[in-house]
C-alpha cells in the first residue's frame, strides 16, 4: 500500500514536470536564469502616467501604481518644464544612456547574460552595459563615482531577484514626458518570471528631493524568440562625424556618403 502510494506520488510529480510547460530556466545553483533578449510592449516609455494619445505619443494607461507620480510641489514644476521642452531636452534624443529603470521599459531589446555572481545587461539603445552583482557584495559607497546606471546589488527572495540600485547622477529622465529624478534617487527592482518567456518587472522609486513618497511601477517583459534574433549596436551619437571615416579611394572620395545633416 505504501509502495503503491509512493509510486503514484512519483508518477504525479513526473507528470507535473512534463506538463509544466512554463517551467522557468534555472542556473546550476537553482536560481532563476534570466538569460535572453527582452523587451516591453507597453507604452511606458512615452509617459509613465496615464495619458490620451498626443502628437508624439500613443495612448497608454500608464504603469504607475496609483496612476500619479507623487511629486513634491517644486519638482512638479520642473517636471512640467521638462514636459514642455521634451522634444529638445530629453537625453534620449542624443542617443545617450537611458539609465535605470528607463532602459528596461524603453521599447527596444536588451540582453541579459547571467552567471551565479552577476547579471550583465546590454541595452541596444544607449550603448551601455550594466552589471547587477549577486555575489553578496554591498554598494561600495565611499568615494566611488556616480553612475548613469547606478550601482546595482541583487539578492534572491525565493525566485524573485531583488536589486537595490543607488549611486545615480541626475542626468537621466524616466520617460519622454519629462519625469525625472535627482542624485538622491534610489530604486529597488523586483525581477520575477511569470512563465519561461515572460518577466514581471516592478520597481519602487524613491527620491526625497523629488517625490513626496516612494512609488511603484510595474511592467511585463517578453522574451524575443524570433529565429536568429540579436542585438544590433546603436552608437547614433557618432552620426555627426562618422562620415569622415575611414579614408575613401580617390574614385569615390568626392562622393561623400550622407550622414546626419
Amino acid at each position: 500500500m505504501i509502495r503503491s502510494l509512493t509510486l503514484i506520488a512519483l508518477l504525479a510529480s513526473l507528470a507535473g514536470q512534463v506538463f509544466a510547460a512554463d517551467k522557468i530556466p534555472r542556473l546550476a545553483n537553482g536560481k532563476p536564469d534570466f538569460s535572453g533578449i527582452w523587451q516591453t510592449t507597453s507604452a511606458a516609455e512615452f509617459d509613465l502616467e496615464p495619458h490620451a494619445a498626443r502628437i508624439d505619443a500613443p495612448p497608454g494607461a500608464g504603469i504607475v501604481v496609483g496612476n500619479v507620480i507623487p511629486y513634491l510641489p517644486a519638482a512638479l514644476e520642473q517636471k512640467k518644464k521638462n514636459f514642455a521642452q521634451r522634444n529638445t531636452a530629453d537625453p534620449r534624443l542624443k542617443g545617450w544612456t537611458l539609465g535605470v529603470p528607463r532602459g528596461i521599459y524603453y521599447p527596444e531589446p536588451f540582453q541579459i547574460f547571467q552567471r551565479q555572481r552577476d547579471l550583465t545587461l546590454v541595452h541596444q539603445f544607449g550603448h551601455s552595459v550594466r552589471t547587477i552583482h549577486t555575489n553578496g557584495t554591498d554598494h561600495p559607497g565611499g568615494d566611488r563615482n556616480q553612475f548613469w546606471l547606478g550601482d546595482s546589488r541583487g539578492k534572491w527572495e525565493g525566485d524573485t531577484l531583488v536589486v537595490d540600485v543607488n549611486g545615480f547622477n541626475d542626468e537621466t529622465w524616466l520617460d519622454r514626458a519629462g519625469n525625472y529624478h535627482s542624485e538622491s534617487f534610489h530604486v529597488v527592482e523586483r525581477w520575477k518570471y511569470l512563465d519561461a518567456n515572460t518577466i514581471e518587472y516592478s520597481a519602487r522609486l524613491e527620491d526625497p528631493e523629488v517625490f513626496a513618497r516612494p512609488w511603484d511601477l510595474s511592467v511585463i517583459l517578453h522574451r524575443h524568440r524570433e529565429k536568429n534574433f540579436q542585438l544590433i549596436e546603436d552608437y547614433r551619437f557618432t552620426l555627426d562625424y562618422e562620415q569622415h571615416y575611414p579614408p575613401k579611394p580617390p574614385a569615390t572620395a568626392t562622393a561623400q556618403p550622407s550622414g546626419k545633416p
Partner: protein
Amino acid sequence: MKTAFTILLALALTPLAQAQQNKQQQSQKPLAGTDRIRFEPTYTLIDSGKWSGKRLPDGQPDVEGHWSNTVGNHNNWTDPQGGIPGDPAPPRKPLGPRAERAPSRVTDPASGEVPFQPWAKAAQEDFLKNFHNPTQPQYIEPLARCAPAGVPKSFIWHGYEIRQYPGYVVFLFNSGTRIIHLDGKPHLPSSIKLWNADSRGHWEGNTLVVDVTNNNSKALFGRTGEFASENVHITERYIFSADGQRYNYVATFDDPSVYTRPWTATIPAKRRTEKDAVDGWHYEVALNQAGKQSVIERDERICTENNIGFGHVAVTPAPR
C-alpha cells in the same frame, strides 16, 4: 582622494601625459606588494593546440577575467613603442634603435608594414601628417571623439574584461562592447555596418576563432592612421596559453579594396589580477569588499555622456 583619482585619469587622457606617466612608472620603485604594469619589448609565442586548462561547465576554456595588451597603446600600429611620429612633444629620452622596441604588430608580411594599395598608403600618411594639428574633421582621431574603438583597436586601448556564457563570449572594452556569438547563427545582412562589427566564433582547442564582418571600419587602427574599408573580412584567432595567463590575438585582414594582399596582425595580451596595481589603464577596475574578501569589479565606462573622454565613469559636476 576623488580629486587625486580624477587628476590621475586626466593625466591618462593625453598622449603626452601618457608618455609622462609611463616615464614615472619606469622611474619609480615597484609598489609594495604589487607589480606595476609595464609594456614588454617582446612577444611571447603561444602555439595553437589542445586546451589543458580550466573549463567552464558548458565546456568552453575558462578565459574569464581582466586582460590588457603587453606592448603598447594605439599610438603607433607598426612601431608599438615608437610613439606617434611627428609628435611635437616627444618623450624626453630619445628613442633608441628600432630593434630595442617591440616589433611591428604586422607579423605577415615580414616587412612589418600593412600592404596598402598606393592610394591607401597615401591616405594613411596624410592622416598621420595632420594628426597633431588637425584642420579637417577626418584628421581627428575617432576615439578622441568618444567613438567606439572597434576592431582591432579595442585590444590596444585600455584593459578589458572577458565574460563567458553558454553560446557567447562577451568583451567589455573601455570604449565599446563585443558580443561573440558561438551558436552558429548567420551574420547580419551585409548592408548593416557597425563600429564593433559582427562576430561569429567557435573554439578549436586553446583557440577562439572568430569570423568578423559588418565592420564599418570607422574606428581606424591607431593614431598613425592605418585602416580598412567596410568590406574588410577579419579572421581572428585568440590563442590562449595553457596556464591561462596570456593569449595572442592573431588576426588576418582581407580587404581587396584597400590592401594588395591579406595580412596578419598579432597583439599579445596578459591576464591582470589582484596582484597587479590598479592603474586606471591596463587594470582599470574597482575594488569592493565581500565580508573581508576583496572583490574586483568593473565600473560602467561611458565616454560621450560624461564629455571628459575615454570612457570614464560619471563625475560629480562642480557646483553651478
